[in-house]
């Protein structure tokens, strides 16, 4: 996919991922590769293993088999063989945005980001936090506790958290869930900007109406495996039909 799009080396290359929880095979032989600026939307019903896929890509879960490889723009590194956990270099390359904020409600926006900046060993944690807040337009609320934020503001702050260390791969797990229309529109604009910065993105969602326009590539995941994968070549209606067909086949 990557080579067909731009000829550049793949930023994210995934081969043969498998993961099981007890008797459930959450991932079965998943593979794809994405170049800079490319984004993959993975659609699938609940329980298809989408979140597992994202957590493996993020380095939160070890796959039973398969590899997640980071290459491209910033040189090699972050090779994660199945036998070993992902290393720190891997973790510096990815940012995760999920419908959970991963933030501490009892801390202020600035404190949350400064804390994560320290974990990423950024040079000046406070300055990095301030820059990230400016990036999502929250600089005025830096001193307020997250518990006072609206859902949309929390999500913007979560994005600032994910972008703190300037990752070149962004992983999005149902980022629109629980957002009202205005917040969703803000988020969509923000994600569009991130894509124009040529970051590589993987987005998973069960709602095909969200995120299709952000994607250059589309996969449909059913029962742990990709039922289809390819460059986006249809409109919303076409993908709705394909999605219905793929999920119906599974029963």
């Amino acid at each position, binding site marked *: 996919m990557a080579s067909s799009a731009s000829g550049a080396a793949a930023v994210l290359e995934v081969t043969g991922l498998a993961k099981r929880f007890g008797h459930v095979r959450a991932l079965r032989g998943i593979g794809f590769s994405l170049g800079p600026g490319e984004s993959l939307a993975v659609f699938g019903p609940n329980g298809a293993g989408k979140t597992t896929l994202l957590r493996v890509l*993020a*380095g*939160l*879960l*070890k796959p039973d088999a398969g590899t997640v490889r980071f290459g491209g723009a910033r040189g090699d590194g972050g090779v994660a063989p199945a036998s070993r*956990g992902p290393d*720190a*270099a891997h*973790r*510096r390359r*990815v940012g*995760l945005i*999920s419908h*959970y*904020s*991963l*933030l*501490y*409600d*009892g*801390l202020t926006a600035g*404190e949350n980001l400064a*804390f*994560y900046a*320290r*974990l*990423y*060993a950024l040079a000046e944690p406070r300055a990095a936090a301030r820059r990230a807040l400016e990036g999502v337009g929250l600089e005025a609320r830096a001193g307020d506790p997250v518990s006072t934020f609206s859902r949309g503001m929390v999500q913007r702050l979560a994005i600032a*958290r994910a972008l703190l260390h300037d990752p070149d791969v962004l992983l999005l797990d149902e980022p629109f869930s629980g957002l009202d229309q205005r917040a969703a529109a803000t988020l969509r604009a923000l994600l569009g900007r991130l894509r124009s910065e040529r970051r590589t993105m993987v987005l998973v969602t069960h709602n095909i109406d969200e995120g299709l326009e952000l994607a250059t590539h589309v996969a449909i995941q059913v029962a742990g495996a990709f039922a289809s994968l390819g460059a986006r070549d249809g409109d919303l209606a076409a993908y709705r039909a394909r999605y219905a067909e793929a999920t119906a086949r599974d029963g």
Partner: protein
Amino acid sequence: MGEVLAQAWAIAAKDLLLEFRSRTAFLSALVFTALVLAIFNFARDPTAVSSVDLAPSVLWITFSFAGVLGLNRAFGLEKENRAIDGLLLSPASRTALFLGKTLANLVFVGAVEAIALPLFALFFNVPLLEILGPLVLVIALATVGFVTVGTLMSSMAVNTRFGEMMLLVLVLPFLLTPVSTAAEMTARLFAHRPFAEWAPWLKLLAAYDIAFVVLCTLVFEFTLEE
């Protein structure tokens, strides 16, 4: 190593800041401690048991229970908004996470103990000042022992059903060595016995600390999702 310690410190400082903001766990641990000290003293038959005989056991039962109950907080606060994912996503090592959590718990339990100790001296009428140095050493060693094991166990207990009860079930068997050695040493300190008489207990407690700090740090990563 320097980076691990810096990350551990960042995590501990964050935990303590959160606790300082809400103070819920700290205050409830303090109230619990004061209640237990008062009830033990009130329930004691003054003609049958002198308070000095009872004091070391009461002190250690109070400290260890208050400590263990407070440990739920350490990983409990990471469950909210799945903040634990944020920690695990970051390049911070698992060792740093464990050390940071343990450090925050040590400060937390140490602060409870620092306030409870004068209260204890008051209720049980034991003169603390003359034995304060060795007593603090004993308290520090025993606290390191049960807080290290407790921190590891709380990382598992938060992901089980009935997590708070589970933490007690998991940790209590491990309290035998730190708590009973500490109680024995405390009793000898109150009775002004020579150091040689409690040195074997001190050695055992120190060995326990070393063994469990090392082992808990090694196995901690297996308590995390993978």
